[in-house]
């Protein structure tokens, strides 16, 4: 069955009728109603919208996605390969909390890591949920906000050394399914944490993972935020992150996109507090007919903010990678220091990369630099490696891996650096694990 774009959207909206009643609260019902209304009004984005003009979603629109109506039976062994040793682990299967697969014993005092649905009565949840992600402007965020079953609730007051691993796993049913992962992270003043958001699938069925994450960093909070998108090959993944930064806070994000047939990640970071710092590193590594789109927006809305961004795309086969990085320095954001770099590696003649760094500056006293480069494997380096006995393929793989490794190395969780390093080696050499 092949649908039109409108039919596909209607199907997603209709799933509301059969959605089982989950836990709720009055304030949330209000938000859900608004979200459903705005989803209906917004519909899917069109290619005429500037933010979507490079991103071909037509393969998504062909499918009818159904809500997940039963909880899949997943064993720990099934998700073993995704696990991070010594992490605080929250596992969601098709958007539903899997307590039996989660491991919260390392969460000490001052740290809450749990199911969102179980804490709807928590005032801190109510104060933050849906207040940052733009469900009135973005149809995907609206769909998620209305349809999400459950999500991660991370609240940190103090310092926690163990990484908090939020693992969203799709099981893939007989019919294409739509799942709505959700995360809410609040880091209190002078508190520190590492959060790993992880999106994966268990088989190559068709599913649509539509994720939303909200992060609130209070004054002088520090967060290392890793996002791994390693969905299965027939998956569609659309993710939105909204991050608010308080005074003197430090936000370091490393976002990786390896998987999915089509993926889009939108990250919006707002520097609301003076002197906040953000480091945004990203890597898209795709092949075949994959499409991976990363849109980032950094709003310097307060003085003396600092942002450093490095985004890399590696596209092989007939893949299409997109990067759009906008930085806005608002009136009053004096002393802003911003550096953005987009570096891209094309591995085949049929691969395609669009990169669009954009700076909008509304005051004088700033230092902003940005640059973009698209290249192929360096032929001098290739010849050098061959002259040392490496085959052409081995040499290409080594150089590609090295290009990717710069981003992987920024991940603050060593076991993840190692396991993802192996994953990208396998991807690069064409061995799918």
């Amino acid at each position, binding site marked *: 069955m092949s649908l039109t774009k409108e039919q596909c959207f209607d199907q997603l909206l209709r799933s509301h009728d059969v959605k089982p009643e989950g836990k709720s609260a009055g304030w949330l019902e209000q938000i859900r109603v608004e979200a459903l209304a705005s989803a209906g009004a917004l519909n899917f984005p069109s290619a005429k919208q500037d933010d979507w003009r490079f991103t071909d979603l037509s393969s998504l629109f062909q499918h009818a996605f159904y809500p997940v109506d039963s909880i899949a039976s997943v064993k720990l062994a099934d998700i073993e390969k995704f696990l991070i040793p010594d992490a605080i682990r929250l596992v969601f299967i098709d958007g539903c909390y899997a307590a039996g697969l989660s491991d919260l014993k390392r969460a000490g005092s001052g740290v809450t890591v749990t199911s969102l649905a179980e804490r709807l009565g928590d005032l801190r949840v109510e104060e933050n949920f849906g207040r940052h992600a733009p469900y009135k402007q973005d149809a995907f965020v609206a769909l998620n906000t209305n349809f999400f079953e459950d999500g991660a609730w991370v609240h940190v007051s103090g310092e926690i050394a163990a990484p908090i691993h939020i693992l969203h796993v799709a099981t893939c049913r007989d019919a294409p399914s739509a799942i709505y992962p959700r995360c809410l992270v609040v880091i209190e003043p002078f508190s520190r944490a590492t959060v790993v958001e992880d999106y994966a699938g268990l088989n190559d069925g068709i599913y649509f993972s539509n994720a939303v994450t909200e992060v609130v960093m209070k004054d002088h909070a520090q967060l290392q935020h890793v996002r791994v998108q390693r969905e299965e090959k027939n998956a569609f993944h659309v993710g939105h992150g909204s991050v608010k930064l308080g005074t003197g806070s430090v936000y370091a994000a490393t976002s990786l996109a390896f998987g999915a047939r089509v993926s889009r990640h939108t990250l919006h970071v707002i520097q609301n507090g003076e002197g906040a710092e953000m480091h945004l590193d990203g890597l898209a590594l795709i092949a075949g007919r994959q499409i991976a789109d990363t849109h980032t927006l950094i709003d310097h809305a307060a003085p003396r903010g600092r942002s450093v961004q490095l985004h890399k795309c590696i596209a092989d086969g007939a893949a299409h990678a997109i990067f759009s990085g906008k930085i806005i320095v608002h009136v009053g954001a004096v002393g802003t220091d911003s550096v953005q770099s987009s570096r891209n590696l094309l591995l085949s003649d049929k691969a395609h990369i669009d990169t669009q760094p954009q700076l909008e500056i509304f005051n004088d006293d700033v230092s902003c630099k940005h640059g973009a480069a698209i290249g192929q494997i360096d*032929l001098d380096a290739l*010849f*050098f490696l061959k*002259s*040392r*006995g490496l085959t*052409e393929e081995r040499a290409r793989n*080594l150089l590609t891996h090295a*290009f*990717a490794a710069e981003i992987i190395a920024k991940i603050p969780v060593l076991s993840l650096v190692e396991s993802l390093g192996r994953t990208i080696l396998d991807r690069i050499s064409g061995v799918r694990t």
Partner: protein
Amino acid sequence: MINKESRILLEVKNLKAEVAGVEILKGVDLTIRAGEVHAIMGINGSGKSTFSKVLAGHPDYTVTGGSATFEGRDLFALAAEERARAGLFLAFQYPVEIPGVSNSALLRLAYNTLQLDRGLEELDPLEFDDLVQEKIKVVEMNPSFLGRSVNEGFSGGEKKRNEILQMAVLEPKLAILDETDSGLDIDALRIVAKGVNSLLSSDNAVVMVTHYQRLLNYIVPDYVHVMDGGRIVRTGGKELALELEARGYDWLRAAA
């Protein structure tokens, strides 16, 4: 050391080659036997760097005539990596930087590739570290360079030393040093030369491609060849280099 009885490593006959449709090598003849040290000198544009790159298999150059055999095998039938595995080594004039690949990882990968090709055991990282710690003494390199990305942030002299370290690890039969002396201060030159000398044996050979006589004070050649206009126009002993240093290249060109 000249020994007319020793086996021929490389035999080049009437070699012609072009880059981007322009003929650079116009008939080069050269025979190198095991145990010999050769120097190829010449002005910029004489074809000496092209010659070394053609032998190593650089893709920009096209062989248009003549032949080259390496231990009896047709060199031009081999891909660049096969030439390396056969024991040919090129020390680059401008060593490339490879961010993200550590020096030790590259050395081990290259070493193990050659080991496998020769039907020998690969070394694991610990075993290889023992080997490489010995080898870096040859070029008096600080072990901290092993953990750094290949040539990234290295000075000119460090890059050249790194090339010789690769030579020390890979133990080629024939090493071509393409302007290895350029950009070296006198101390680095001495270290590099000492390293090369320590690697010389009666089983291998070295070709130094150089502009200046300076390097030849430290690595004494058995033969000095002068290239001009894409040919070897003169061959002599080490005294030819001194003569070139004293008189320049013009008298040769005039004579040719």
